[in-house]
């Protein structure tokens, strides 16, 4: 016998019945995300803004104030120092310099000279205006392309209604993730884009599992009302949905706590993504099928992928 049970065997959670509440919640979430983003903006990392980031380890802790003083005289524009996980580990961010790539290089040298000896340079990152611009657009294209590719795949494997419902749920996940990053002013960088794309992948994974069951039940119970059928499908797969989210969260929390400072923002975004992705699959994507009016005609091409043995 298994020792623990997260979800009882016969669940009967009225996800479909409560859909209006979920819709309302999600609409508020998306709208407030947009408002937050337009009001507070995003704290983009140097990948997208250009600029300089230097991580140093000092011989003794608590030098941050002195270092700030030293950098003040350099005329670098705005810069920022913060402790990075430990009191002797300091992250220095300097705004992009006017005067193109050469000015950036000069600024790195100036900072290193001003800080003097006795410092270990753990990381130096410099992104020029050309590259940051490219990274920004590439990141945007990647997210849009991923969502579109998934739309096509789900459309191809299911029906267009499923594809559309899945993409609405995905967009919901992406927008609310951006809203969250804007709200808490966490740095949004290349790693965050990777996290967003993974969230997209994970969330669709969850959605597809439930959709698959919906499709199966559509064939099995030809006369069951749609609402009841969706209700049954979500509850049948609920145990799996919860389990997978739980094991993934387990791994991600380990990454967040022990994976080091650099990876922490990434792990954070992912943890949020798993939560919102699971929610949107069950509470948004599936109920939306009811609104879309799924065709109930039998389809023959569902058995294209079957195991032979």
């Amino acid at each position, binding site marked *: 016998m298994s*020792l623990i049970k997260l979800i009882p065997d016969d669940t009967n959670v009225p996800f479909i019945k409560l859909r209006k509440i979920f819709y309302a919640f999600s609409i508020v979430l998306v709208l407030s995300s947009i408002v937050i983003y337009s009001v507070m903006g995003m704290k983009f990392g140097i990948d997208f803004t250009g600029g300089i980031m230097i991580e140093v380890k000092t011989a003794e802790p608590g030098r941050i104030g002195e270092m700030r003083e030293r950098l003040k005289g350099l005329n670098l524009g705005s810069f920022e120092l913060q402790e990075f996980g430990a009191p002797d580990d300091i992250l220095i961010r300097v705004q992009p310099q006017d005067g193109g790539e050469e000015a950036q290089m000069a600024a790195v040298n100036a900072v290193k000279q001003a800080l003097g000896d006795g410092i270990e*340079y753990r990381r130096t*990152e410099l992104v020029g205006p050309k590259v940051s611009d490219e990274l920004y657009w590439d990141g945007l294209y990647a997210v849009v*392309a991923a969502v579109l590719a998934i739309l096509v795949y789900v459309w191809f494997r299911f029906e267009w209604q499923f594809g559309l419902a899945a993409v609405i749920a995905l967009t919901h996940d992406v927008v609310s993730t951006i809203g969250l990053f804007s709200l808490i002013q966490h740095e949004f960088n290349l790693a965050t884009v990777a996290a967003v794309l*993974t969230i997209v992948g994970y969330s669709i994974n969850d959605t597809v599992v439930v959709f698959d069951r919906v499709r199966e039940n559509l064939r099995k119970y030809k006369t069951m009302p749609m609402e009841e059928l969706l209700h049954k499908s979500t509850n049948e797969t609920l145990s799996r949905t919860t389990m997978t989210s739980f*094991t993934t969260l387990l791994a991600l929390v380990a990454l967040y706590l*022990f994976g080091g400072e650099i990876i922490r923002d990434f792990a954070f975004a992912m943890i949020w993504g798993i939560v919102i992705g699971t929610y949107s699959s069950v509470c948004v994507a599936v109920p939306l099928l009811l609104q879309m009016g799924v065709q109930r005609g039998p389809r023959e091409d569902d058995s294209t992928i079957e195991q032979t043995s």
Partner: protein
Amino acid sequence: MLKFETWKVTLIAGLCALGMLFAAPNLLDRSVAENLPDFLPKQQINLGLDLRGGAHLLLEVETRVVIDERLEALVDVIRTELRKERITYVGLGKTGNGVAVTIRETDRTEQAYELVRGLDTGFSTNLSDGGVITMVMTDQALQERRIAAVEQSIEIVRRRIDETGVREPTIVRQGDDRILVQVPGLDDPERLKRLLGKTAKLSFHLLDDKASMAEALAGRVPPGTAFLPAQNEIDIMGQPRMYLVQKRIMVGGDTLVDAQPGFDQSNNQPIVNFRFDTVGAKRFGDVTKQNVNKPFAIVLDGKVISAPVIREPILGGSGQISGSFSVAEANDLSLLLRAGALPAPLKVLEERSVGPGLGADSIEAGSLAAMIGLVGVLVFMSLYYGRFGIYAGVALVMNMIIITALLSVLQATLTLPGIAGIVLTIGMAVDANVLVFERIREEFRAGRGVMSAVDAGYKHAFVTIVDANVTTLIAAVLLFAFGSGPVQGFAVTLAIGIVSSMFTAIWVTRLIVALWLRRARPSTLNL
């Protein structure tokens, strides 16, 4: 379900064994692994720069400079030719990607046109009203010149980096005019940037001793003469000392065959000893013979390193540069002279360098997180699914081994985000098993027998697993296509993890479950 053909068993067990074999070198020290006999796999995972430490530089070749040089050369030739033919002209100069000149004498425009037309085949020449001749570089010539400049730059960059003695640098062209340089395990990225930041064009010139310094300071420099600052000398005002240097190159740095740092015997100052090839030696000998007791200038990238007086003809083809260098400067300069000059300056578009300390810390933290994640998931799965959970755990460990093997064999680069990808895979890999187990449980509770339930569970879950994983794979492929560096590393491990987890979660657990069913023949399922 019980019928598991022998060939299938062999295939699954074989793949697992191969996985272990190819993952094994990672347990050894790098030096030990490299010395394994040839019939054993010896490739280890290729760590990214963010894990092993090192510098990543994205450089841009300023090809515009090369084009401009060619245009200037053409302007010089046109001037000389027109003067030779005594054709009067005005407005000779560069315009965009070409040059233009206006011929005053209307009856000689045809002659001038014919004359300049043949000077450079890379240009299309055009004569318009008013005696204006324009020569525009053809697209093909532009492209060829750019490609040549980039290729040559890559070669010089490679030579300079090789001279520093670092191991396994990656130097590749990216796009039209970019060079990606990745140097692992570098202690001092600043030195690398210093070395790549100089074009290192060296030339020897005579000084113009007729021109007046006062005139030059007032902005009137005679044609054919350049007004250049000294590199290390400072005048009483604290400004770099200025020199009037003849533009004509006496001997170029391309004729150097060797350069080594050394010390001046008399005052122990660091110097650079150099040697010319035969052509250079002869030219240098001739010029010095004719100009004894006159000063000459050694010019590097538009700055005068030193301007000694020629005491006697230098006929041996070797000499020394003493320019009040530090030891490091003398070392770097001789390295640059040995490696040769860049055709155009390089601009650093992007730099990411990681010190060895941070890399080691990242590996440690990443491994710890992976271990804790793995143990957490294993414990949870066995608590939740009992015997089946343990089987899933075995598959998960096998999955990790296969991921390691694939990364080693493909020599894909493992980055810090890549480790994150693996940790994520740990969490998501069991999904396939969860799907199968939940399905088996469901089928069993619906009244099927043990065998039939297990069979149906695997069969029905399969379609779902494929659908669900293909979508994640799509995301991974796009990440790889659009991402850069570390993000690509994440995409690679994510994709490898998905593929590998489908194999282990479906076939490996299935084999184990089948073996158990065959042996124990249970009548009920504790799932």
